[in-house]
């Protein structure tokens, strides 16, 4: 009965949380209705910069560069390139491109991209779409090899080709001096421009006819304004100023976002004043966001959009995959952590009048200090990008995450376990030794089981913290829950609902774990009951 009441309470709490959120949504609508028309984003149709897109090729493969240049010339000449562009800018239909699994034994073309840059590259379900992706598919066919697409942060695209993890970068890449350090550029295939995006109720740029007009106004506004850009793109260099490009920059504060839609979303949330991004994606994003803002029931629309991507476009598969990875990393990390942590704790409580225990104790103290002294993100990055290449090993992001989270939690669990062992009556160890068991056997059979019972609540805390901390593994390319919902968000240009659903999933996970710990505790407390 008590249990029933408890679960009822939980469900009620969740429903309340949800309704209050919906209520927020309808309040938004009311505000919009009051001001007459919802504020949307609009693009100033003047090219701020003109730049050339090209592909970046691994410097150790000059023959691939020649082949790519020949291929670009060929598709430009026979009209294939115009056909592809027509699929996105005209009345054509985008073609889905699929990626084969990476297999070093096969002849493959490994493409590095950042699939959040519509219409050049984006994802729907498990398929890639976009101008670059369609070119990639045809290029692989032209070379007669299998196509593998590796989706990563834009900042990492050139780097991964430079480190020879990928053969070619196809990510709407502008030809730029400092990028030439990492890759060889092909001939340009597309001329792109940066555009300014402002709020629909902002009329300061209405009279502008040239780039100089816009730049004059932006400069005049001084450092009181904020400009949003996508990290690592031309827009960022243009806004901040960059010598190698010849950009003077603006006095305004430049704020970098992971992608253009987040920047425009933040513009509409009134956190920044302007956005400068590539013109092709800018058009797609503004259309999509404006569509959701105009008219009534915007929260309902956001939910609909989310449900649409979640169900129709196989978003749930990504979420299930992400959930699986999150749990995998947390659970296996905890198991590794408990194993290593217990060993460390046992070593640290050894009597210390011999040399060996002292040396081991020193090593363990160093280990604990090292892992408690650095942030988990730093450990992940160092392990994945520094240690693995030095050792010449290849591991997937998820495996690295499991290992690093295991090693990290071992440091914390060792201290928890040590306090647990110290809390067990020393008489238990004496009794074990007195009947002729060794130190280790007594530890394993008698002391540690009692220690675990004492520290179970703290250990549960550690597990819960671990589950939530896993949300940083996208730094090393592991696809966890956060990556899944971020994917849904960047595909719908709408992050409110996906992020909320993600929060709810984390809460439910943590509640389930707390329940599991309670049940375990009850069964372990059997030996304490007096009846």
């Amino acid at each position: 009965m008590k249990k029933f009441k408890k679960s009822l309470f939980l469900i009620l709490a969740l429903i309340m949380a949800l309704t209050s959120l919906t209520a927020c949504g309808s309040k938004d609508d009311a505000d919009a209705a009051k001001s007459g028309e919802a504020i949307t984003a609009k693009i100033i149709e003047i090219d701020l910069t003109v730049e050339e897109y090209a592909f970046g090729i691994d410097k150790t493969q000059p023959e691939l560069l020649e082949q790519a240049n020949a291929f670009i010339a060929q598709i430009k000449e026979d009209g294939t390139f115009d056909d592809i562009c027509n699929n996105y800018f005209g009345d054509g239909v985008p073609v889905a491109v699929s990626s084969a699994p990476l297999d070093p034994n096969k002849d493959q073309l490994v493409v590095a991209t950042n699939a959040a840059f519509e219409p050049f590259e984006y994802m729907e379900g498990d398929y890639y779409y976009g101008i670059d992706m369609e070119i990639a598919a045809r290029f692989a066919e032209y070379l007669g090899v299998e196509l593998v697409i590796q989706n990563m942060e834009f900042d990492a695209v050139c780097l991964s080709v430079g480190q020879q993890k990928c053969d070619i970068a196809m990510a709407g890449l502008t030809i730029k001096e400092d990028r030439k350090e990492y890759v060889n550029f092909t001939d340009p295939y597309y001329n792109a421009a940066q555009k300014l995006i402002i709020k629909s109720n902002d009329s300061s740029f209405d009279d502008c006819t040239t780039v100089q007009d816009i730049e004059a106004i932006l400069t005049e506004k001084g450092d009181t304004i904020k400009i949003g850009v996508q990290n690592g793109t031309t827009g960022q260099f243009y806004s901040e100023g960059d010598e190698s490009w010849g950009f003077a920059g603006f006095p305004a504060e430049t704020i970098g976002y992971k992608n253009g839609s987040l920047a425009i979303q933040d513009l509409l949330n009134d956190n920044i004043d302007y956005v400068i991004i590539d013109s092709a994606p800018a058009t797609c994003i503004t259309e999509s966001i404006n569509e959701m803002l105009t008219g009534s029931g915007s929260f309902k629309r956001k939910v609909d959009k989310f449900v649409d991507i979640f169900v129709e476009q196989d978003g749930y598969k990504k979420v299930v995959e992400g959930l699986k990875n999150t749990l995998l990393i947390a659970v296996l990390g905890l198991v590794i952590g408990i194993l290593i942590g217990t060993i460390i704790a046992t070593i640290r409580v050894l009597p210390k009048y011999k040399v060996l225990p002292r040396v081991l104790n020193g090593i363990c103290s160093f280990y604990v200090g090292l892992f408690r002294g650095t942030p988990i993100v730093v450990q992940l990055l160092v392990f994945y990008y520094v240690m693995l290449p030095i050792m010449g090993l290849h591991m997937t992001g998820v495996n690295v995450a499991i290992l690093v989270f295991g090693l990290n939690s071992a440091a914390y669990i060792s201290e928890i376990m040590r306090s647990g062992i110290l809390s067990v009556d020393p008489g238990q160890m004496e009794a074990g030794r007195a009947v002729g068991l060794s130190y280790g056997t007594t530890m394993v059979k008698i002391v540690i089981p009692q220690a675990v019972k004492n520290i179970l609540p703290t250990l549960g805390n550690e597990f819960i913290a671990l589950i939530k901390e896993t949300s940083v593994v996208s730094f090393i390319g592991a696809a966890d829950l956060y990556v899944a919902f971020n994917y849904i968000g960047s595909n719908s240009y709408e992050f409110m609902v996906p992020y909320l659903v993600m929060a709810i999933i984390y809460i439910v996970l943590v509640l389930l774990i707390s329940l599991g710990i309670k049940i375990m505790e009850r069964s372990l407390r059997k030996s304490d009951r007096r009846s």
Partner: protein
Amino acid sequence: MIDVVNLEKSFGENKVLNGINVKIEKGDIICVIGPSGSGKSTFLRCLNCMEDPTGGEIIFNGVDIADPKVDINIHRRHMGMVFQHFNLFNNKTVIENIMLAPVYVKCKETKKARKKDRTIKYNKKEIQKEAREQAMALLERIGLADKADVYPSTLSGGQKQRVAIVRSLAMNPDVILFDEPTSALDPEMVGEVLDLMKSLANDGMTMIIVTHEMGFAREVANKVLFIDDGQILESGTPEEFFGNPKNPRLKEFLSKVL
């Protein structure tokens, strides 16, 4: 059986045992008395190296177990110990408490023997079954067979101490060391524990008992030791020990406790 030669023990600067010499024969029941802080508990704990002696020898069945090179675990299996605070394994039921060490040791020995002689069979289930039967027999002896599957936390102090005694009996030891076995008990439970110890004495078990129960010492012991300042100041049969004490400090001590 146990020959203690010039036993010394110090904790840092603090010298607790100051050269103890005593011979213990099979079947002896030796009570050790003395004021608190005199070193009598430390003496008992040195006998099975719960505390490592800092000097002297303890010859047990012909081996000097005070030597750090000796595998003490093997010798402890022949030396039971009963503690003031019982120290039953809290995470094990009563019968598991009794079976744990016999099963573990038997399994280990059988495996070792099997390495030399392949014809020896290793069957853990069989070993466990035997140990369980033996443990049940011991529990029946102390009238606690119905408590076999409960955890120690549900037992009274007297019951716990009786279980602790049969736990050490389960290893078929040559000698049992008792470290103030009744000091932590409520008065009405002291009797049941002393009765069990008397019945062990009647069976001919060798026992060394640190105790404050003078009546018990007088009745059961065949030798009583008085320890103070880390030395044996007087030893003898109970009759002469209690009837005609010679050492002035023993006289003073007895006048206080009797």
